[in-house]
């Protein structure tokens, strides 16, 4: 790990000021991803701004929903009684990810800002346009079974690794940020970006901005939901494909549908056209298959990840079936019903 300077602000304004004074600095909260990246020399910040003393540790009622402070740990969110009762999709997605130790340390804001787990991004001996723009992409034509099938570019085929963000995308959460030009709100669907020709940028955060909270809207899908995560190990592994599905039903008819995929793209993948297609349709396997076809119509395999397209197709159908039946995937009993 490189040597660095360390500052510990007490307020959001001080934190924003500290980053403004040194744009090469990094905020650190849980540190579970950043310290790891620093040990691999992928990140070499000259200064760390420890934001753990900022007053961003509460979950409060907000506009009919909940506002989660950026420093609330993943474990605290997942086990919060209000989250479990009103937003069980979010709780389930968080508990599908990482380990208990990591969830105890990792923050809500940090979860959104974690970097890809692409092998080539981590390996400084290989080219990577995300780590070192202009050097190329080792994953294209390389070992890429974990890589993107949707929204990739010729410059980067990395995926975003978060489970939490996939549930937040389905719930239409809003990210509250503060920066040198004041505060603004970014819908979760617009928070992360596709790689395009600038894969070094994971998000649409502007320089100098800090996440202060994540807002959950009133509509919470507490009855018909699931987070279905498919991976190489049953526990403590990143998703090959995951599905956050949330439905509102009128009897056997779908009134509202939300669907977000993880493990398949540079951001949580939502297709509102497919969600619209589900609305007003009977809650049947045939309906779900039509939506899956639409979502995956533009999927493109890499050299060794073609299986993920069929895996995603089946996961979408099974996820919607679980949601409609009100039988969400258990995150301790991993058998898929």
């Amino acid at each position, binding site marked *: 790990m490189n040597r660095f300077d360390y500052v510990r602000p007490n307020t959001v304004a001080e934190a924003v000021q500290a980053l403004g004074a040194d744009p090469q600095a990094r905020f650190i909260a849980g540190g579970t991803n950043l310290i790891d990246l620093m040990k691999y020399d992928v990140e070499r910040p*000259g200064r760390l701004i420890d934001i753990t003393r900022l007053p961003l540790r509460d979950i409060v009622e907000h506009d009919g929903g909940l506002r989660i402070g950026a420093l609330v740990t993943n474990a605290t969110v997942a086990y919060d009684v209000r989250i479990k009762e009103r937003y069980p999709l979010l709780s389930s997605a968080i508990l599908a990810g990482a380990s208990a130790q990591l969830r105890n340390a990792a923050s809500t804001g940090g979860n959104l800002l974690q970097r890809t787990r692409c092998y080539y991004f981590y390996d400084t001996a290989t080219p990577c346009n995300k780590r070192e723009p202009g050097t190329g992409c080792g994953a294209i034509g390389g070992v890429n079974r974990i890589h993107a099938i949707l929204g990739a570019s010729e410059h980067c085929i990395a995926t975003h690794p978060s489970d939490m963000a996939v549930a937040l995308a389905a719930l239409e959460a809003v990210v509250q940020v503060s920066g040198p030009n004041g505060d603004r709100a970014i819908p979760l669907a617009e928070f992360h970006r596709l790689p395009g020709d600038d894969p070094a940028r994971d998000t649409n955060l502007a320089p100098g901005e800090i996440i202060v909270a994540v807002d959950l809207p009133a509509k919470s899908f507490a009855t018909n939901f699931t987070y279905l995560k498919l991976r190489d190990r049953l526990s403590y592994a990143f998703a090959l494909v995951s599905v956050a599905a949330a439905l509102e039903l009128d009897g056997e008819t779908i009134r509202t549908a939300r669907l977000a995929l993880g493990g398949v793209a540079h951001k949580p993948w939502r297709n509102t056209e497919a969600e619209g297609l589900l609305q007003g349709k009977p809650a049947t396997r045939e309906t779900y298959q039509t939506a899956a076809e639409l979502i995956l119509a533009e999927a493109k395999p890499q050299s060794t990840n073609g299986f993920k397209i069929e895996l995603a197709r089946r996961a979408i159908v099974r996820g919607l079936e679980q949601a409609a039946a009100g039988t969400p995937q258990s995150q301790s009993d991993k058998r898929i019903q």
Partner: protein
Amino acid sequence: MLIDSGSPGAVGTIGISLTINGERREIQVAPWTTLLDLLRERLDLTGTKKGCDHGQCGACTVLVNGTRINSCLALAVMQDGAEITTVEGLASLAAREGKNSLHPIQEAFVEHDAFQCGYCTPGQLCSSVGLMNEGHAHSREEIREAMSGNICRCGAYTNIVDAIEDVMQQGGAR
């Protein structure tokens, strides 16, 4: 700003206060020192093990304010003011409450043969106590899932779950 270690590149150290296994310590640390390295290299508390050093194996698990974390992914300077319990402190936790020389989870690991080479054991023990403090795992399946951050290459998993289940049935972490 509460703390500023000076200009970038300067080899500064920062004074922090930690309570480690019940003993309050005032320590000067470089900001890049992990909690794991502080414990092992500076304080001779070598019970906490360095396995992968990347948060994947759980051998470095300690309790910070009663909560289990990977000490390899925690900077010591960021723990300023915290109460740290390592495997060396588990027995004293029990002793303070008038128990025998071992913590109940340690006795259960011996009883159930929950280790072979022992390298992962300090992390398994601290993680088990953290799991019981959390109170979210009840069934064997839930215990297995909640212990998934602790790898045991000897494969003692079945007996580790037995040990935890046994202590939980006796009333949890005492």
